[in-house]
């Protein structure tokens, strides 16, 4: 076929195949396959259609490999028949590739985990989806949703006024149930510690999970808010393979949390949303996220462990099993925490087999729920899942993913299983024991801050009323820092090593910690990480003071919220006071 006869889509795709920069795992996946058949045993499509070789992951991946062989590899250009390269692309090929990339793989990565050669078929498949998407070849469902996510800012086209109306409605329902309006959902509340982002499905069709989450935040006395915009944590960029959409959707959420001064973005139970927002979007968007991101499962678990909420597991006595979402378990390593939480709020938990990273897909992964054209194939592939569920004898299948809720719901209906699907937030809310309502957490803090400010004004010393923990193994340094800060009006505690620092921080709960990095025993980096990971003291401001400026990267690379300040020794007295004051002022503004 001559160049002029080719459609624009074909020419464009050929250009992309020749020139697109390929990540390392894609290059490895293009050459690594030895056709051993392990992936066949791993794939729910292949297992449900054992007679159809086109369902085997290596076959699907081969269709993509052939393309790269043709357009990337010189051997494919010179003797394509010999090296198994693709024939020149046609429009029909694009449709066929669409059918494979979107319709026979949910990118669940089970074959990836079971490949002895480390071939990442799911990543290869997502790359193919992205290439097709960039020339406009994609299922209609994916196109519509991506458009809404680009243009309206959430994947279901929920308008701002409708969203706010829905939150208000849930607040009213809570008020009706509790007899007071203190559990109302805060919206755009500046300086809240937690910003809660959700899946639009919750607002549009089933806001019961929003209500449950609000009740839990209220019971924990959390300082939290939802945002009127940038509240959609889902990301169709992951499904369509469009990194630009992925970055844009992620950035909207990040920007809003930063604008609200939030310290923690809590992501409601959604597998692909969690993976996209927490693990992928910072890369897609090319940004560094300055706050902590966590799944609401972690938040709820922490509340129970810290005693901030009380639960009575006997309220959930039906047999439950847990379905691991592919994105949570295989892509984020997030599978023990949901189980820990589940055991705290239910009495009869039965594992599904296989489980964790070996669990089978709900059938709805990779955006499959939005592609009706592949529904029969999807439901056929659900036989594996149905057998797994039936073997547990559970009445409730629990999952931490909205896609799984719908995927499993379809499987349960199609295979006539006698059970229902719930999320952890439902079960925690169900098990919740509400004591006397706690006052909102920020109230006393505002009072303290105001009192400190007033006291500071009275005596002219800028740190009056502040409580600071000075951590340094050198006595001279400790004494110097303490003296300067004390002169500025602060109350000082001291610690000579990391272990002591954690102890004192837990006991005294200072406003700020100055932390040396090179110390014997538990060093500063370790201590810092532990501080951030210990929930009771995670929020304390930290100013690193070190003689090693090169450690900065080490500290900022830790997977925890970065320190609020970083100073190099030797430190001048006035710089120290100014820095500490700035950090504390910053907190005051946020509060």
């Amino acid at each position, binding site marked *: 076929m001559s160049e002029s006869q080719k459609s624009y889509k074909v020419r464009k795709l050929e250009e992309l195949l020749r020139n697109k920069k390929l990540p390392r795992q894609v290059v490895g996946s293009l050459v690594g396959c030895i056709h051993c058949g392990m992936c066949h045993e791993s794939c729910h499509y292949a297992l449900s259609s054992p007679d159809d070789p086109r369902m085997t992951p290596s076959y699907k991946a081969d269709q993509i490999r052939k393309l790269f062989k043709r357009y990337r590899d010189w051997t494919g250009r010179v003797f394509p028949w010999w090296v198994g390269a693709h024939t020149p692309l046609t429009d029909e090929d694009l449709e066929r590739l669409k059918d494979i990339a979107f319709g026979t793989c949910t990118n669940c990565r089970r074959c990836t985990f079971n490949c002895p050669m480390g071939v990442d078929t799911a990543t290869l498949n997502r790359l193919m989806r992205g290439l097709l998407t960039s020339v406009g070849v994609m299922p209609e*469902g994916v196109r*519509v*949703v991506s458009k*809404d996510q680009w243009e309206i800012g959430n*994947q*279901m*086209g*929920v308008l701002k006024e*409708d969203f706010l*109306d*829905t939150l208000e*409605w849930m607040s009213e*329902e809570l008020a009706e149930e509790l007899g007071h309006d203190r559990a109302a959902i805060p919206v755009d509340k500046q300086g809240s510690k937690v910003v809660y982002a959700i*899946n*639009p*499905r919750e*607002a*549009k*069709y*089933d*806001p*019961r999970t929003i209500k449950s989450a609000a009740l839990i935040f209220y019971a924990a006395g959390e300082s939290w808010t939802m945002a009127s915009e940038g509240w959609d944590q*889902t990301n169709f960029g992951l499904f369509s393979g469009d990194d630009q959409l992925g970055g844009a959707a992620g950035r909207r959420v990040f920007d809003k949390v930063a604008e609200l001064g939030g310290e923690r973005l809590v992501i409601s139970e*959604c597998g692909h949303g969690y993976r996209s927002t927490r693990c992928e979007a910072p890369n897609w968007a090319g940004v560094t996220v300055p706050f902590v991101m966590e799944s609401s499962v972690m938040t709820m678990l922490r509340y129970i462990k810290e005693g901030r909420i009380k639960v009575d597991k006997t309220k959930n006595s039906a047999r439950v099993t847990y379905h691991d979402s592919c994105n949570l378990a295989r892509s984020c390593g997030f599978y023990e925490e949901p189980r820990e939480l589940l055991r705290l709020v239910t009495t009869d938990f039965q594992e599904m087999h296989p489980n964790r990273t070996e669990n089978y897909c709900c059938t709805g992964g990779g*955006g499959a*729920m*939005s592609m*009706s*054209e*592949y*529904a*029969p194939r999807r439901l056929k592939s659900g036989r594996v899942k149905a057998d797994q569920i039936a073997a547990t004898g559970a009445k409730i299948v629990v999952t931490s993913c*909205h*896609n799984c809720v*719908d995927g499993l*719901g379809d499987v349960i*209906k199609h295979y006539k299983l006698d059970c229902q699907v719930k999320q952890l937030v439902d079960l925690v809310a169900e098990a919740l024991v509400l004591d006397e309502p706690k006052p909102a957490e920020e109230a006393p803090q505002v009072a303290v801050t105001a009192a400190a400010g007033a006291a500071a004004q009275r005596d002219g010393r800028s740190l009056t009323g502040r409580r600071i923990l000075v951590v340094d193994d050198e006595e001279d340094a400790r004494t110097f820092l303490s003296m300067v800060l004390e002169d500025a009006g602060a109350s000082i505690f001291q610690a000579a090593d990391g272990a002591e620092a954690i102890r004192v921080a837990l006991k005294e709960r200072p406003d700020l910690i100055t932390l040396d990095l090179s110390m014997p025993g538990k060093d500063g980096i370790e201590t810092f990480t532990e501080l951030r990971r210990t929930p009771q003291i995670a929020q304390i401001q930290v100013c690193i003071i070190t003689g090693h400026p090169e450690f900065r990267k080490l500290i900022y690379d830790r997977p925890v919220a970065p320190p609020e300040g970083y100073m190099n020794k030797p430190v001048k007295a006035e710089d120290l006071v100014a820095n500490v004051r700035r950090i504390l002022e910053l907190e005051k503004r946020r509060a």
Partner: protein
Amino acid sequence: MPEFKVGDRVLDIDEDGFIQKPEVWDEEVAKALSKTEGVEQMSENHWKLVNYLRQYYLEYGVAPMIRKLCKATGFKLNEIYELFPSGPAKGACKVAGLPKPTGCV
């Protein structure tokens, strides 16, 4: 494209069972569709929901937010799930002859 038989008519449906042409919808179609969604008998309450969904869809071209549905019909959220076990998106919208809602549902 799969087909769906209602009386002696044959309608086009998508693979998830949603009818493709909203204009062919009538009470008979709704009754037949409701059986696929675990609703054996359409009660007055079922009709109230379905009629609102349909009217909203014909006017705006999209399914309404559940908030609007509850406000307009006076049903509580849980009551909707009692009426249509597969929920408002997949259950009620299907019976009302809407196309499948877009997104993660």
